[in-house]
């Protein structure tokens, strides 16, 4: 394996892209989109004290969305596309090893994802003008974003080496990525709603005159969805990983200041089992709901499990493609020709 060969192969791959007009149009559209998102994000967070932190989190999530939406198209035919064009064998017959080819392709796919991040840099910079952003938050969220870009790229390159036809491998890459982003959400929602349990609730009865009876309790049961059984499904969602891994800043009232924190709060709240509730109108005690800060502090982080699952999927597919691309080839993916 040689760094020089990996670089040549990655550059070969990127040259194809850099010389197509469509690529620049795509980046241009993304820039315009980000401009709109940034303006709206400023409006959304204008009420808060930490405008910059909020806008920054929205722009980072937008970049992740774009990577998830566009990367599969660009990486999902990296290997079988070359096989179809008969350019893969031309590289395999040189002194470049299978590892050089695989890592070169991966590097090119990752670089493509980075291009979106680079377009987003001015908007990230503008968001910081809003103030309130924390350096650790910036660093960690960007780091997680980079890891997610690599994961999506590896899934695409991996499937393109395992599936013979580019069309199917691109579609399958989309399915896997959509499985992580939308699929986890669907399973979470359906699973939580399908499994319901009875929870007892108490309140003071009222008499015919509308006077509270402080001597007795009225008990009734209610079916509630059990999201606490299925919350872990969300762990592998890229947006949840990003939100959950990023340290959260809270305002004076204990509310998260950015979108990362708000998503994290949503997932952490789902971890809480339903509790028996009682409303006592006769008591002067004010029932205090736990603040988001307390909820987050009392629940478990899941991002490393989710990221682990993603890395396992991406790594497995990539390793499979690596062994399928090895030459001299013993087995070929069905329906492929070497040259």
């Amino acid at each position, binding site marked *: 394996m*040689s760094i*020089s*060969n990996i670089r*040549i*192969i990655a550059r*070969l791959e990127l*040259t*194809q892209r850099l*010389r*197509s007009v469509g690529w620049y149009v795509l980046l241009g559209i993304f820039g315009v989109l980000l401009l709109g998102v940034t303006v709206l994000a400023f409006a959304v967070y204008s009420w808060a004290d930490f405008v910059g932190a909020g806008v920054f989190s929205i722009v980072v999530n937008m970049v992740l969305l774009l990577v998830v939406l566009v990367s599969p198209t660009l990486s999902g035919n990296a290997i079988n596309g*070359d096989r179809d*064009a*008969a*350019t*893969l*064998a*031309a*590289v*395999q*017959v*040189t*002194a*470049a*090893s299978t590892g050089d080819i695989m890592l070169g392709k991966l590097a090119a796919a990752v670089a493509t994802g980075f291009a979106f991040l680079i377009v987003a840099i001015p908007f990230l910079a503008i968001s910081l003008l809003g103030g309130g952003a924390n350096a650790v938050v910036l660093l960690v969220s960007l780091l997680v974003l980079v890891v997610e870009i690599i994961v999506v790229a590896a899934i695409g390159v991996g499937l393109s080496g395992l599936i013979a036809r580019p069309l199917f491998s691109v579609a399958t890459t989309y399915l896997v990525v959509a499985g992580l982003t939308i699929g986890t959400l669907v399973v979470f929602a359906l699973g939580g709603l399908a499994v319901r349990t009875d929870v007892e609730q108490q309140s003071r009865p009222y008499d015919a005159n509308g006077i509270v009876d402080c001597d007795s309790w009225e008990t009734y049961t209610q079916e509630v969805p059990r999201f606490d059984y299925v919350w872990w499904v969300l762990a592998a969602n890229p947006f949840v990983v990003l939100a959950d891994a990023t340290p959260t800043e809270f305002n004076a009232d204990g509310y998260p200041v950015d979108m990362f924190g708000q998503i994290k709060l949503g997932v952490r709240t789902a971890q809480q089992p339903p509790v028996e509730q009682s409303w006592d109108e006769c008591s002067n005690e004010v029932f205090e709901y736990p603040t988001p800060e307390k909820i987050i502090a009392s629940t478990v982080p899941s991002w490393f499990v989710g990221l682990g699952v993603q890395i396992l999927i991406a790594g497995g597919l990539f390793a499979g493609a690596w062994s399928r691309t090895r*030459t*001299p*080839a*013993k087995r*070929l993916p069905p329906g492929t020709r*070497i*040259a």
Partner: protein
Amino acid sequence: MTGIIVDSVSRSFGSVQAVRSATLRAEPGRVTGLVGPNGAGKTTLLLMLASLLAPDAGTIRIAGVDPSENALAARRLLGWMPDALGAWPSLTARETITTTARLYGIPVPDAAARAAQLLELVGLRDLADSPAKVLSRGQKQKLGLARALVHDPQVLLLDEPASGLDPEARIQLRTLLRSFAAEGRTVLISSHILSELEEVVDDAVFLVAGSVVDAAPGQSTGRAWRVRLLGAEAARQNADSWQVAQTLGLPIESLGADRGGVLVGFDSEEAAALGLRSLVQAGLQISEFAPAQSALEHTFLTLNDPAAAAARSAAQAPPTAPPSPPAATDNGEAGA
């Protein structure tokens, strides 16, 4: 330098047996032709030689190196030109060569010099900076050849290099291949254009249904020769046939006709030479006397005859001698 040695190599794809226990040698300093019908396993065999495909059984040596054990060493020694060039769509011809050179570990300045030299050699200098995807089929073949030569390989594997080339380029290719052989390199070339192949190869290997077959018995069978009298034309066809039949003492029904010429069957080259002498001695003005088929073509066609092939497959043998002296078939149009 041991050239190419293939020893009982087999390869199947699922239930399809593409190459069956093939054994052959290609010597350094010689051009060896790989001949066989479509689907005979030529490309599969070349892919195995090019270290891209692993044989199921048997061994391969490329200049002494086994590509299954040390693919990298084999790749540094061999140059492979596929039957269709996969061109990187947005690279120019020059970049295609320099990129390939870089992948062989050739430093940038040397790669640029090598690209210029090779593009000049294959006659693509004027198109050096056009995108490879706009090249015509023949130009792509030239680019493919230049790419195969980039690291100065000792063993050349060429899969149908002449297809799509214009006559001038074919002659250049022939000269090029001869000069490689003269430098002591090993050249293995597959082609369907047998008359072309015949002009360049020293040895021929026949591949039928994945097996190497011995073509020697094919030589002894008779073949047709084309005899043309001076000023022959369609109107004179019958008169010419009669004259030739009369002179050679053959029944006129045994003679064929071909574009004004007369087709005569001779059992051997000796018989043909004797026939020519008697025609000349009889005062006939012969303007052409040549085999109606190239020797390779003749052998190739008899190989496809199943009855003949069955008899032959029993006696498999490594490479065959050149089918006939090249002078006898040179261009087929030389006057006698």
